[in-house]
């Protein structure tokens, strides 16, 4: 830990940066109805939404790991025409307004969508289901994992892989026993970023999956709906979301920082 004194300008700007993030948090805390907090929290709707949020964000992270690590490997290791364009297209959801992402998902997986028509014909319905909420969360969150893992793959020391290869290991064995352990911190960091993005996801979910308590109403949606009629419930729900996120981010901090 360095004890260097920062230049005044840097200290001031950094302090403004901190205040910018802390003030809204303090605002939330200042409006929190602490006396009735427990009652608001144990209300079934809060717990239902929290449970659904945890399930949806965990499922989205699992899918992102399954598809995202291979995708990142291809981006980092395989050279093919149009790679940069395809990488840009698959990271587009990071900057796309989530509501637009939700509409795009409807045009793909909705009842009249490109693939959705076929799915509907065999009786599979994705919008308005929990699977739809998972799909929406995966769509907006997976690019965070892909980019982080790709950066890890590009910065790792490839001589270990070469050594394993010369010793006769197969390509899949090298990937499992050498590459994956070496990029584990990046995978971990990417998964945390992806999970955090999935947990806070709102726009694509409400557009694509709709809003129904217990099925698609995740915590951010429940907060939005509650804000209009029962702001104290909305504040408590927000605090739950914050507390869960904060606990996980703090617990992951060491690994999280090491990867960058």
């Amino acid at each position, binding site marked *: 830990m360095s004890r260097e004194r920062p230049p005044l300008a840097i200290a001031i700007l950094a302090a403004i940066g901190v205040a910018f993030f802390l003030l*809204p948090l303090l*605002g*939330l805390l200042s409006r929190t109805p602490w006396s009735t907090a427990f009652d608001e929290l144990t209300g079934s709707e809060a717990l239902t939404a929290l449970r659904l949020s945890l399930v949806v964000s965990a499922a989205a992270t699992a899918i992102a790991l399954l598809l995202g690590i291979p995708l990142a490997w291809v981006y980092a290791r395989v050279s093919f025409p149009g790679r940069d364009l395809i990488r840009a297209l698959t990271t587009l959801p990071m900057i796309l307004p989530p509501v637009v992402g939700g509409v795009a998902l*409807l045009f793909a997986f*909705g*009842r*009249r969508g490109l693939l959705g028509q076929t799915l509907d014909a065999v009786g599979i319905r994705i*919008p*308005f289901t929990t699977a739809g909420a998972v799909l929406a969360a995966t769509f907006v969150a997976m690019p965070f994992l892909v980019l982080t893992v790709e950066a890890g793959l590009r910065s790792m020391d490839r001589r270990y892989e070469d050594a394993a290869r010369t010793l006769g290991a197969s390509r899949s064995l090298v990937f499992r026993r050498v590459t994956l352990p070496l990029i584990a911190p990046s995978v971990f960091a990417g998964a945390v970023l992806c999970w955090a993005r999935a947990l*806070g996801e*709102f726009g694509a979910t*409400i557009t694509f*999956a*709709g*809003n*129904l*308590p217990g*099925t*698609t*109403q995740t915590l*951010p949606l429940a*907060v*939005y*709906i*509650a*804000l*209009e*009629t029962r*702001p104290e419930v*909305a*504040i408590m729900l*927000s605090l739950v*979301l914050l507390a869960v996120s904060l606990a996980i981010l703090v617990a992951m901090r060491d690994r999280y920082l090491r990867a960058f």
Partner: protein
Amino acid sequence: MPLAVAVAAALVLMSCSSEQSAAPSSVELTVFAASSLTDVFNKLGDDFRKTDPAAHFRFNFGSSSTLATQIVNGAPADLFASADEDNMAKVVAAGMSLGATQAFASNRLQIAVAPGNPKKIAGPADLARADVVLVLAAPTVPAGKYALEALKKAAVPARPVSQEIDVRAVLNKVALGEADAGIVYVTDVRSASGRVSGVDIPEIDQVTARYPVAVIKGTKAPLVAGRFVDYVLSPPGRTTLASFGFSAP
């Protein structure tokens, strides 16, 4: 995620910058209006500017409950037009209204279905059918509250697959073909111009939505805001409202 607070903050910032840049002779009027008023208020604004060219409108359309929350939390509105009396009452109770609120229109419910009504939905009773995907507005939104009232009168169990954040979102889900039916206002079906068809709800199950308007405390243009309210209530304003399917209050 304190979304409404963030939106309100963004509006504050936007209004600060636009007031500085506006020419002194022009008056900017920020109107918060229920999303079912989207088309008719744009038209009323355009018509009003023919007699009051200095007035410039900035509309913020959303569910009345969202708008009321924004106003109560200090969003800079000059006028608020709500799709129900409850949300206007919230604004009045918070001491945010200037003068009396006035009812200017009323609206009726209709079932929005795919064009040509392929699922042969004849009335509220069909909304309980297992093969009908029903979408309603959230019960916290006026359109959702009215829809539940109508379904209750018709003794039809409400089993929507989604509770949308405002009535236009319900309309869109039907127009996009994701839902087979949604309960919206008569005026929404009309404004969708062919993208959905309307199925009437029998008189006995109907619910009337009354739309009140009020000038909001802290407005920088109380006179112009008052004149616009008068225009909305005037015979030409009433005619425009009627042409979009609204009834007299």
